[in-house]
């Protein structure tokens, strides 16, 4: 029983990282119906930016976090403006290939000697790890911080979407882009804001992931990215709270299946669940007929 609870704790902390990444997928899909494969590399850039902010710029944890968020938000907006916007009305495959092109670009630019180089880097221990025990259960402060940051970010996002004018405009745009444009909403601005927020959250995810698993490499975003993507679909792609729940579920499923089923097959289980969900209820757990933010 203790073992089980322990795995639940581990699963939730991993799942909260997935939730942070999957929100970006889901928001972008909700607004422009695009699966942004480059999103997982924004996550990677976020982790690297955090690394440089802490080691080279000697920033503390919180400033480094904000710095990384700002860099990634800017990066997300620039990518959308340069690479995606001109293709907004062309075939889906074309746009998807472009996101893959951007993904390759990000992975390879990080690899260059001017930036990080091809070698694996170790994320600095910016907050000394401390573990404490409560009744046989082991917590690390890193896990608590991860969870805390995720909860704060999600709450802030939820506030933004439901209570502010920008959030209202985002919801309107995802419901019907043309109608929103006719109502005087600046669609380009809303899309930029969406990319900025999604990318900033991915950066947060990158930094907390770096603290949990301190190994940085250019392709580090791929697997967490895929799983976060599964999480977004699981929760109903385009639905923000769905992405959060989906992220936590995938984290839990992965951790538990690693322990109780097979460590090798745990990656496949997420995808098996994905396929079953798609076949039984393609709009995801929280999806309605029309997918909305």
């Amino acid at each position: 029983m203790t073992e089980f609870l322990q795995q639940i704790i581990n699963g939730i902390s991993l799942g909260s990282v997935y939730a942070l990444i999957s929100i970006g997928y889901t928001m972008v899909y909700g607004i422009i119906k695009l699966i942004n494969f480059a999103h997982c590399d924004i996550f990677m850039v976020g982790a690297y930016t955090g690394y440089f902010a802490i080691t080279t710029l000697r920033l503390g944890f919180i400033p480094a976090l904000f710095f990384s968020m700002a860099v990634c938000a800017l990066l997300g907006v620039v990518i959308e403006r340069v690479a995606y916007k001109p293709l907004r009305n062309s075939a889906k495959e074309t746009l998807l290939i472009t996101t893959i092109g951007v993904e390759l670009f990000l992975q390879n630019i990080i690899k260059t000697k001017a930036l990080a180089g091809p070698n694996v880097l170790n994320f600095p221990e910016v907050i000394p790890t401390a573990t404490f025990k409560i009744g046989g259960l082991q917590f690390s402060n890193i896990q608590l911080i991860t969870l805390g940051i995720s909860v704060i970010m999600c709450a802030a996002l939820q506030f933004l979407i439901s209570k502010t004018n920008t959030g209202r405009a985002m919801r309107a745009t995802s419901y019907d882009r043309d109608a929103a444009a006719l109502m005087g909403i600046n669609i380009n601005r809303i899309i930029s804001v969406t990319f900025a927020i999604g990318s900033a959250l991915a950066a947060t995810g990158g930094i907390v992931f770096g603290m949990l698993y301190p190994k940085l490499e250019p392709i580090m975003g791929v697997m967490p990215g895929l799983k976060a993507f599964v999480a977004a679909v699981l929760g109903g792609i385009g639905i923000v709270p769905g992405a959060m729940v989906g992220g936590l579920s995938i984290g839990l499923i992965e951790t538990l299946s690693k322990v109780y089923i097979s460590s090798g097959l745990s990656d496949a289980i997420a995808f098996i669940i994905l396929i079953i969900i798609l076949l039984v209820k393609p709009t995801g757990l929280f999806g309605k007929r029309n997918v909305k933010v």
Partner: protein
Amino acid sequence: MKETYKKYIKVVIGLIVAYAVFQILFQTGMINSYYNRIIRQIGIFLISALGLNLILGFTGQFTLGHAAFMSIGAYTSAILTRNFGVPFLLALIAAAFTAAVLAIIIGYPILRLTGDYLAICTLGFGEIVKVFIQNVDYLGGARGISGIENKSGFTVIFVLAALCFAIIMNLIHHSSKGRAILSVKEDEIAAQAMGINTTKYKIIAFAIGCGMAGLAGGLFAHFSQFIDPKSFDFSKSFELMTYVVLGGMGSLSGTVIGTSILIALPEWLRGLSDVVKEYRMLIYAIMLVSMMLFRPQGIMGTKEITVAGLKNFFGKIKRIFRSSSTSVNKGKEA
């Protein structure tokens, strides 16, 4: 009917000439073994990309799991030749067949999905195949299988690539089945109103396309002599998709061009200089994105290269050349 056969005889003669030219170039050493290897690699991935074009370009079904079917073909053929001593060609047929049968089994439930959902589902399937192979010791697990015989020579690749090209060409452009497949992409509801069982044709196209992926996988195993699950993950599926989209979805000659460029380009960049070598994948990425931005329909669009088209093209160039040379002459006279 006579005309059709005359045309086919011409095509076959053309292919034999092309084959002979390649062989002469290989024998005389004008194409060295390094380039020979690249050409064979292009041929192998071309077979897979042609299959993908049938699914993606002609039938309009968005799949991101094509590499998984390559891996199924690769493992099937490698196990057959290595562990059971099955002849190479028979193992290739088995590879294509296994991939096609699996495509039918999984295609039946998932081809009901459309667009992005189908893409996600096939992507997930590809990852499942990868993880499955990683966990089966008999298949070498994550370490892969090495010591596969080197059997994929230029001849067999050339013949099979030409065959796959011809199969899709005949099917799509000269048959009622092909029009049914095209109609699925254009408008499913109208296709059904014309008596087309759209699900059936989706599955047919998917099975043929994946069969070709299986065949290419079998060739690849006996080309690189080593296979592991990671060489067929979703990034390989993406790569195959870039070949098809760059060439033009719905153009077979476009797929030939796209595959050739995208495999040759990184190799060519590698040869240029040390600086380029370091940045070659970066350059590749930039070229890919700019290609999509400036010519999103791909190099060929949905057109094919035809003899008449080539004549027209060269005629235009000639005219431009002539008009410029006459204007030069006029300049001299003045």
